[in-house]
């Protein structure tokens, strides 16, 4: 369809002219509010208190959402919001990994507050257009696009009936429509979802960036929590931001010299060490597949096992031959770690675009493990095909993979059958059946509609409709808080069980990934050690989300002398880099203690936000037993030597005197008790009471003892 024809069908629903302005030390001190029910568009000032306490990014998102919804708001109520916020450091071009923005809103999966981070150009261009955050509320009657022009100083809501929905087509259309010339495409970033985001609860958002060298629009994903579903529920087809004039000083940093110096140091480190470390520039995060398989923590067949001989077929070697490495693969300017690999031409074998050659944002570790090994499918071309369709349909590959593993185990154990699946034989390893479910999600038909509910709701559906045993499904359904697990086997790491369970949003590894420190290095032998790690790392990682930073340049590359430092796991030199970047942009001097305190403010605020929405207490921090230990005899016996040894060592039980069923139960009792002891220790370290609620002393110490928070804590703590 021609650009003119598409544009002709657009109808202007709302327009807002604003004063352009420049950022000052990383901030514009205003946010953009768009209401799709009323077509109101407005500017909101950011108060000094909000700036000091919430810092930016996810912090701003949480504060805006708190003010925009009530404790009874549901994800699909018009008052729910989608907030997209970069952070004060976001947008600098001197240091790798500084283009992240954070999406915040109420999740259809968890029913409470969610955050998801994403690369691409949207966050930085939004900032340079003059906004510290974009806050969207309300629901349009018909499909719309929101267009922010950061050079003209306009925001428009346009009815957009003719564009495609699926991302790989829509991002091209919107980029083409709003670019004045070919060169201008690099000044545009687009957010889209896709057909399946309308029909499932696991929708994601694609954020685009224009790849000049390949002359292609590429995408990064805000995958977790179902924001694509919220997006389509609000009848948003796309959000476009346009800004011409990106350069290295647009944040108007306090000391650009510090940014230059810190950036050059890391660029040199990457140039000299990446090839001998993780090879991120060549293979992205695919390097993790071999490591996870070697250490028995790669999830295989719905997390029953941690390795598989066939996993070699999904190694980085298997994927890198598809990668095109001739261009630059950073998802924001200045990122020399450039992990966003691309498959330039892949001929699709299934679905509505069968036979089409498409560009694929290449699979990362989580996708390969999720749709691959979790489903017992060890075929790289299946993974690439699945990755493409998940992206274009707008659904999260992690949730898709994990829920498909649950379906396959449910099918093989007789919980569901072909009658339920519409004839699909959903055994582990059946790649064509898995793809069929994915296409059904895209169309909103058949078993795909049930699958798209996510693991938590599927469990209930199977119990209610097919008489399934709820305790078995609760054991094997890899979800917590309603969110599907990301892709690591945590059975042998109690700390990682906490890293999944004791999170604000659900089992995503972006708070703490402690498996090696705990399980392999044995650096966290006591509950106190584990609790300390489950305090420091989640707070450290939260800080990235406040500032607009990517995690990967923190520890997917490390200085040559890192191994001789006191705490190599923390990468002390890189932590100092981040403090320097903060000072360089904002002019404020902080140390690690203050960094952690800044995060604690936001982290605890989010915990109380969960409380406000009816969650955020101990019972919501449970995890399925599959994440703690072997659910079935089959699993136990697959690692019998390990488990038998533990029975002897920890419980002084002679395994030869017990049968496998007894041993499964004894080990379970022990591990569940360990988890509860860990929960107590972590709550104590975080300044929470036994229910998992931040104490009044904690919120007072952090300066978030706002009246409504205090009242809520008092009510819920009684």
């Amino acid at each position, binding site marked *: 369809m021609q650009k003119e024809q598409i544009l002709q069908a657009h109808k202007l629903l709302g327009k807002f002219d604003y004063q352009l302005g420049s950022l000052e030390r990383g901030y514009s001190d205003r946010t953009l509010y768009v209401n799709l029910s009323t077509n109101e568009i407005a500017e909101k000032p950011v108060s000094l208190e909000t700036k000091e306490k919430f810092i930016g990014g996810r912090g701003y998102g949480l504060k805006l959402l708190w003010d925009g919804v009530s404790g009874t708001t549901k994800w699909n109520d018009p008052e729910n919001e989608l907030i997209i916020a970069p952070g004060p450091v976001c947008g600098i071009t001197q240091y790798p990994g500084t283009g992240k923005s954070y999406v915040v809103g109420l999740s259809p999966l968890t029913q409470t507050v969610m955050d998801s981070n994403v690369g691409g150009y949207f966050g930085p261009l939004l900032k340079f257009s003059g906004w510290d955050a974009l806050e969207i509320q309300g629901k349009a009657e018909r499909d719309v696009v929101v267009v922010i022009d950061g050079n003209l100083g306009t925001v428009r809501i346009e009815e957009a009936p003719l564009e495609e929905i699926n991302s790989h087509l829509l991002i091209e259309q919107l980029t083409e429509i709003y670019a004045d010339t070919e060169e201008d495409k690099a000044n545009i970033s687009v957010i889209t979802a896709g057909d399946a985001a309308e029909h499932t609860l696991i929708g994601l958002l694609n954020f685009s960036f224009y790849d000049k060298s390949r002359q292609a629009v590429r995408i990064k994903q805000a995958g977790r929590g179902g924001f694509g579903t919220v997006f389509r529920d609000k009848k948003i087809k796309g959000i476009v931001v346009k800004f011409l004039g990106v350069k290295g000083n647009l944040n108007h940093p306090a000391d650009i010299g510090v940014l230059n110096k810190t950036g050059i140091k890391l660029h040199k480190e990457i140039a000299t060490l990446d090839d*001998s*470390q*993780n090879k991120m520039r060549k293979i992205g995060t695919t390097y993790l597949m*071999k*490591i996870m398989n*070697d*250490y028995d923590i790669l999830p295989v067949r719905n997390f029953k096992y941690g390795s598989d001989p066939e996993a070699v077929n999904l190694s980085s070697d298997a994927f890198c031959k598809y990668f095109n490495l001739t261009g630059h693969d950073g998802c924001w300017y200045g990122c020399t770690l450039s992990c966003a690999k691309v498959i330039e031409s892949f001929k699709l074998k299934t679905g509505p675009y069968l036979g089409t050659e498409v560009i694929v944002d290449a699979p990362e570790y989580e996708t390969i493990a999720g749709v691959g090994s979790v489903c017992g499918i060890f075929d790289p071309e299946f993974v690439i095909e699945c990755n493409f369709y998940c992206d274009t349909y707008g659904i999260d590959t992690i949730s898709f993979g994990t829920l498909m593993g649950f379906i396959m185990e449910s099918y093989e154990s007789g919980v569901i059958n072909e009658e339920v699946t519409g004839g699909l034989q959903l055994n582990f390893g059946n790649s064509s059946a898995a793809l069929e479910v994915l296409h059904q999600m895209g169309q909103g038909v058949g078993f795909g509609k049930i699958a798209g509910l996510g693991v938590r709701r599927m469990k209930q559906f199977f119990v209610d409709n097919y008489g399934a045993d709820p305790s078995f499904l609760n054991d094997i359904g890899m979800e917590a808080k309603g969110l599907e697990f990301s892709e690591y086997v945590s059975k042998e790491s109690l700390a990682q069980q906490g*890293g999944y369970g004791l999170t604000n949003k659900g089992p995503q*590894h*972006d*708070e*703490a*990934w*402690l498996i*090696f*420190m705990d399980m*392999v*290095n*044995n*650096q966290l*032998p006591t509950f106190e050690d584990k609790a300390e790690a489950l305090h420091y*790392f989640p707070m*450290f*990682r939260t800080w990235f989300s406040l500032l607009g930073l990517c*995690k990967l340049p*923190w*520890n997917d590359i*490390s200085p040559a002398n*890192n*191994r*001789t430092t006191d705490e*190599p*796991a*923390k990468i002390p030199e890189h932590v100092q880099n981040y403090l320097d970047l903060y000072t360089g942009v904002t002019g404020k001097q902080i140390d690690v203690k203050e960094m952690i305190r800044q995060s604690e403010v936001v982290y605890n605020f989010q915990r109380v936000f969960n409380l406000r929405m009816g969650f955020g207490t101990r019972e919501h921090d449970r995890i399925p037993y599959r994440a703690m230990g072997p659910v079935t005899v089959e699993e136990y016996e697959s690692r019998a030597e390990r488990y038998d040894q533990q029975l002897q060592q920890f419980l002084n039980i002679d395994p030869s005197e017990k049968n496998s069923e007894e041993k499964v139960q004894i080990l379970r009792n022990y591990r569940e008790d360990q988890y509860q002891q860990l929960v107590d220790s972590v709550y104590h370290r975080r300044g929470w009471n036994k229910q998992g609620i931040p104490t009044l002393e904690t919120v007072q110490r952090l300066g978030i003892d706002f009246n409504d928070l205090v009242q809520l804590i008092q009510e819920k703590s009684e």
Partner: protein
Amino acid sequence: MITVNGRDFPWEEGLTVEKLLQQKGYTFPAIVVIINGNPVPEDEFYKTKISDGAEVKAIHLIAGG
């Protein structure tokens, strides 16, 4: 018997750091090895022998998430 990261592991005559890492299945590319408090340079893993009773740390430099 030696300990590796605080856990018992059987010792054998001629055990080197390289052999130990192989036996443990430690394939991760960034591991710091410390024997009785003394760090072992990576390029000496193949020739550094571990004596019976040694306390070995094989710290994998990966953490955080």
